[in-house]
Every structure is written in structure tokens, then in C-alpha cells.
């Protein structure tokens, strides 16, 4: 068995003429928290489904725990906990019944599953909702239940497809906290997201995907270091004037990005740059200095923003 839990070489998936995943290579090590960052339609979910042995590749190699998902689907799925993008909870059952029956689907004995339920309810902070119908839960609770459900089989790899999309900030932070705990327990996480803050918070290492290809790979910090500057100055001159001043601004720093509503200026020292702008006689309506993020990396790599 190779040293990697998941290993892909030339992994390709086509739907008719459309190439959803275009010959990508990556490896995921044990205990690692691995991210796939990219906009909607980048091919992240397709990669997740191929790893999850619910979608067959068209070309390339894919090995999960030393096995080929095309030949050993059930055995691979037994190792995985899957949290899909859209909830697939059983609406006809209560919270604890959902956990129970999901364990049974893996063929686990009744006694074993019943023993797991308490632990999982505590983990998901749903002890008081154990007898509630799934429909009555909030979005954040449903997500936590889905994660708890995925853990019932004690998986080594937890696959999370856009885990916090559609949740409010508080619910997201609760969820992140739960995922950190899993990571501490040694569970390998594979996460897709189009939120850069999520990728920065949760991932040790990630690949940036766009249109089915990998644009870059590395830790969040190294990606920012390699593809962006230390700081970013965001200035707004009003949507009609942004373009007018762009040329002047471009001359003042390493690189700029013109967005419809603002101009991003890449620099090692944002405050100094802002002073320079004022000194040149320009007066932005608003300005903001911030640290570079993965959003900037993505913009640099693709010329587009993550959320469009």
C-alpha cells in the first residue's frame, strides 16, 4: 500500500463532450486536511464523487487506501464518511433514527450502532433534538446531523462537499469547531469550498481548481506567498472613475486588479501605498488595507473572483 490515503494521476471525467475534470494529479496523506478550492463548476464535486466511488473516471488512475474505486466501490465507501452538498437526510425519521439506520446501512450490528448514537448526538450538539423530526431542524443543525451521520461507521476519511454553504456565520463557526475536533482525532478531511476563509481555516494543504484543472497547490500560507503580496489595498473611486485612475494606480505598485466596484492593489505595505496615492492628488472614496487571502491567489491565477 502506498504512503498516501488517496492518490490521483491523470484523473479525468467527461460528461459527453464536456470535460469536468481534466487530467489532475494529487495526493492526500493520512491525518491531513486537504482542500479543493474553486468556483462553482470547477469540477470539485465531481472529484469528490469519484473518490467516494459513486462516479467512475474516464481516464487516469485513482487509488483510495490502495484500492481502485471502480473495482472495490463498497469496500472503499465503507472507509468514507460522506457529507454531500445537498442534504440527503431521511425526512421520515427522527434525528436519532437517522443516525441509527445509517449505521445499519453499513451492515453494522444494532447494538454497536445504538452505542454510537449518544456519542454522535453529543458531538453534533443535538442531544435535545434526538426525537425531533429532521424537518424541524435549522440549516446548521441539519448539517451537523449529516456530519454525525457520516461518522457512524467510524470512517478514516471524511468527505465534505461545501460544508458551510448556506449557513449563517454563527452556524459556520460551530461547524468549523466540530471539524477541528475531528482533525485533532486524526480523521483525514477532504473538503471542497468556494469560501477562501473556510479553506484558510480548515485546510493544511489545498489545490486551487478552475475549469477542471489544477491551477496551484500548496498550503494556504505558501500559496499566498507564491501568488500574492503580503498586503492588499482596496480602493474605491466610484464605479465610473475606477477605470479612469487605473493606469495611474498601476504605476504605483506591483500589480492591480480592477473589479467592477473597486480596485485591488498588491503591495508589501498597504498604508505606505495609500499615502502615496493621496500624495499623487488622488482621493479614493473609501480605502481598506488587509492581508492577502486565497481569494487574491485565485484572482491572480484565473483573473476571476471565486464567487461570481
Amino acid at each position: 500500500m502506498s504512503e498516501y490515503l488517496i492518490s490521483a494521476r491523470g484523473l479525468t471525467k467527461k460528461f459527453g463532450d464536456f470535460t469536468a475534470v481534466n487530467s489532475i494529479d494529487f495526493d492526500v496523506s493520512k491525518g491531513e486536511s486537504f482542500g479543493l478550492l474553486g468556483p462553482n463548476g470547477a469540477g470539485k464535486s465531481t472529484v469528490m464523487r469519484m473518490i467516494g466511488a459513486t462516479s467512475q473516471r474516464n481516464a487516469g488512475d485513482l487509488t483510495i487506501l490502495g484500492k481502485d474505486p471502480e473495482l472495490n466501490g463498497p469496500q472503499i465507501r465503507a472507509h468514507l464518511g460522506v457529507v454531500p452538498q445537498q442534504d440527503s437526510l431521511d425526512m421520515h425519521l427522527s434525528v436519532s433514527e437517522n443516525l441509527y439506520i445509517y449505521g445499519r446501512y453499513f451492515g453494522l450490528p444494532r447494538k454497536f450502532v445504538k452505542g454510537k448514537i449518544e456519542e454522535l448526538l453529543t458531538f453534533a450538539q443535538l442531544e435535545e433534538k434526538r426525537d425531533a423530526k429532521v424537518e424541524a431542524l435549522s440549516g446548521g443543525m441539519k448539517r451537523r446531523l449529516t456530519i454525525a451521520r457520516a461518522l457512524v461507521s467510524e470512517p478514516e476519511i471524511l468527505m465534505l462537499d461545501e460544508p458551510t454553504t448556506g449557513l449563517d456565520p454563527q452556524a459556520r463557526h460551530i461547524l468549523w469547531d466540530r471539524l477541528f475536533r475531528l482533525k485533532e482525532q486524526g480523521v483525514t478531511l477532504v473538503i471542497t469550498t468556494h469560501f477562501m476563509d473556510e479553506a484558510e481555516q480548515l485546510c493544511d494543504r489545498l489545490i486551487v481548481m478552475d475549469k477542471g484543472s489544477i491551477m496551484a497547490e500548496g498550503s494556504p500560507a505558501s500559496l499566498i506567498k507564491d501568488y500574492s503580496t503580503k498586503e492588499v489595498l482596496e480602493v474605491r473611486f466610484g464605479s465610473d472613475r475606477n477605470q479612469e485612475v487605473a493606469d495611474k494606480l498601476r504605476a504605483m505598485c506591483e500589480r492591480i486588479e480592477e473589479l467592477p466596484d473597486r480596485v485591488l492593489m498588491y503591495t508589501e505595505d498597504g498604508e505606505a501605498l495609500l499615502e502615496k496615492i493621496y500624495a499623487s492628488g488622488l482621493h479614493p472614496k473609501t480605502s481598506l488595507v488587509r492581508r492577502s487571502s486565497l481569494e487574491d491567489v485565485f484572482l491572480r491565477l484565473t483573473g476571476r473572483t471565486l464567487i461570481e
Partner: protein
Amino acid sequence: MFIPMAVAIAEARVGKRGERYYSGRVPQLLERGFIAFKSSTWMIVLSGFVEPVLYLLSFGYGIGKLLPTITVGNESIKYAVFIAPALLATSAMNGAIYDSTMNVFFKLNHDRIYHGMLATSMGPLDVALGEIGWALLRGFSYACAFMAVVAPLGLIPSLWGLLAIPAAVLIAFGFASCGMAVTSYMKSFQQLEIITVFLLPMFLFSGSFYPLTVFPEWLQFTVNLLPLTHAINLVRGLCLGHINMGLVGHALYFVIMIICGLFFTTKRLNALFMK
């Protein structure tokens, strides 16, 4: 090295026949059906039993007054005795169709329950057999309940009629596997209406309420191709004790339906979830 129990269970199935499609989890799916059933709408459950009884009361005793006997072969029988087996066969069909179309459509497209199921170490054939198995359990209990009502009324003249219960389960199996196959191809809720458009005329023309001999030849021929006609002939033959090789033919019709239905359901679920 620590091996999670779920993995050990899946590994134990390596090398078994059809292991990529089937993991032997039908009992678990029936367990799910039972848990959901405990809190389900009892009206739907009850209606499956009440419907044939109401038909029997209104037609059997209403029309039965105007038409005291009806001739089948050389035998003259009471009208209620004539229609009771047909109602049993029809209720087996209706129950199976309800469970395998409406219910399946919602689980497939709305609740996405099968998506969750197939992310586990189960396969699509587990899901197909489990869902159909549940429809059969329901069909079996309806058939028993119906027999418990009609037999004491003297509407089942032959002891062979006991075999009408397994026959009803066979019929339900045929309709459920085909119903699920058809539903798995449906894109919208409206398309499900097509099934109703097909079922209602079949119910009315398949010889439930009068012998097919009243029809012109060409219509008899057409009606004889329909599954419900075979279902009614099978159950009626058993209830009346008219045992002949024809009954085997009717049963075979359903065996073929079952095989085709399961084949297409598994194929389609595989295409939907394992693409």
C-alpha cells in the same frame, strides 16, 4: 492496525456474486421501512385495505342484486364471488404501484434519500430490492386482511384460494419492480400521471367486473396482453379452484415482469448514482 467494523463487513463480501451492486442489506432497508411506517400517515395505510372492501360492498351487493349469478366456464357463481378475486388482484397492484412510484419518486428526487443510502457500502440492487421488498410486505398484509374479510362471507369457494395470498405477493412484486423501473426514468412529478392514465383503463377493462367474453375478439386479444388481466385470471382461478396449466402461464408473466423490472431499476439506479 485498527480496522473499523464497517470496513471488515464490506471486506467480508469481496468475491461474492454481484458484490458491486448488492451487499445483502435488504433486511436493513426493511428495517428502515418499518421505522418510517411507525410514524407514517395511517390513513394511507388504511385506505389500501378499505378500498377493495368498499368496491366489494358497492358492486358485489349492488350489482349482485340485479345479477344474482354469472357464468364462468360451465359453472354458475354468485356475482360477489366473481369479483372478489379481481379486487384482491387489483389491490395488490395498487398498493405495489403506490409504494414504487409516488414514494420512490419523492425519495429519489425530493428527499434524496437514495443518495444518502448509496454513499454507504450498499449498492443499487440493495436499494431496489429493499424498496420493492417493503412494497411486498405491505401487499402481503393487505391480501391477508382482505382474505380475512371475504373468506368468512363464503366468497372463496375453493381451498386453493389460500394460494391467492402468495399469488397476490407475486403480482405485487411484478408491479412494484416495473413501477420502480418506470419511476426511475421520470423527470417530473407530472410525468407520474402517465402511470395513472395507464392503470385506470386497465382496471376497468381487465375483467374485474364482467367476463372478457363480452368484448369483440380484437379487444379481448388486446386486454389479454395486459398484466392485470393475467393477475385477475391467476387469483380467480385459484379462488374458484379452477386449476390448470393456464395458471402457470399467468404466474410466468409476472416472473418475467419481476426480472425485467429489477434489471432496469438496477441499471437506472446505477446510471443515476454511479455515473
